[in-house]
């Protein structure tokens, strides 16, 4: 990454995810690369293809790069490799916990077995939790119930 590209990358890293404001776009790993070659190309990888925040994120990327003085900006979408919760690093997982959302399991390569693992309540840390629904308030979340502190909470869905 050139110095110029690194500068753009750092600026993009200040934009927070519209649905999970605890994390930035780079922490969410939805920005794959930045290339400057006459024009600026940002490669973007959506969490879920139907995510309604996608249009807003793309607009924010464009505004951010334009504010750095660039005129020609292309945003490319890539599914190679597909976005996966495995990409989130430990720092991002801790920020999710602090925000009240349980992080995904470390390995989601096999979704069915990832769903078998114990899930800890982000508030009381208990593992006495049950999956209420694999669908939640956003495409990337599922609903759990903590039997220990008797609270519902959400978790980032392993994918």
């Amino acid at each position, binding site marked *: 990454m050139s110095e110029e590209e690194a500068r753009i990358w750092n600026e993009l890293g200040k934009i927070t995810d519209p649905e999970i404001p605890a994390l930035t776009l780079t922490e969410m790993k939805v920005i794959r690369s930045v290339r400057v070659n006459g024009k600026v190309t940002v490669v973007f990888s959506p969490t*879920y*293809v*139907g*995510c309604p925040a996608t249009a807003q994120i793309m607009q924010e990327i464009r505004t951010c790069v334009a504010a750095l003085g660039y005129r020609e900006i292309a945003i490319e979408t890539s599914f190679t490799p*597909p*976005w996966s919760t495995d990409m989130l690093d430990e720092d991002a997982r801790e920020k999710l916990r602090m925000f009240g959302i349980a992080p995904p399991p470390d390995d989601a390569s096999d*979704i069915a077995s990832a769903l078998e693992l114990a899930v800890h309540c982000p508030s009381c840390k208990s593992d006495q939790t049950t999956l209420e*629904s694999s*669908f939640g308030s956003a495409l990337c979340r599922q609903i759990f119930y903590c039997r220990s502190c008797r609270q519902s909470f959400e978790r980032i*869905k392993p994918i």
Partner: protein
Amino acid sequence: MKPNTPLQTLLLSLADDELILGHRDSEWTGHAPILEEDIAFSNIAQDEMGHALVWYSLVETDTGRTPDQEAFEREWDSFTCCRFVSYPKGDFAYTIMRQFLFDQAETVRLESFLESSHPGLKEAAGKIIREETYHLMHSQGLVHRLGDATPESRKRMQQATHMAFPQSLGIFEPLEGEAELVSGGVFAGNRSLQAEWLRRIIPVLHSVGLSVPADPGGVRDSCIPDYGGRIRDHNEHLKELVDNLQSVYRSVPGGTW
């Protein structure tokens, strides 16, 4: 408007299936029997429309026609979805059965695309198949629960199976120019996908005692597949749906938020 190439025909049929079923799924928002299902169907609707967007975007790279133009500017009798996805949502048993039969078909279809000679199709399938895992877990789980719960739920699920099964065979209605796609390694072809799909759905249905109007591996003469959708021969259900789907877009052509 007719698609120009067999690849466009395939992509539009995929996209239209997802868009129309997604719209039907969205009709449960605010109306599902329990809150969790309300949320589930709202999520699934959003996912399916996202998948439609991916397939329409692949068409766009060929034709320059945008996803919005495909979804909102075409007449209802230009859509090439199977008829199956256009029928009214019915009761919750029918909704679950339709979703299960479709999710299994979509999974089989996507697995075939993972081997495709077409890079765009292959890349998109790799993304979408992960999301579909959750759809299939959900619908298959409910087939198990409702198919084997109370006398009323068994009765409803059996009725739904008899109604949905012949319709669902329409997913695999042959496409114009399909032979060319099969020989070019784009996908395995509908005949082979249907055979694989039957191998997967029949044991699930039998395991909860639901009878299917077909023999595993082959369809009985008495079970007439509901074809027509792929050649744009639809019925009033699709017309009504598309009128509704396009009403806002058409009321302010070119409008933006």
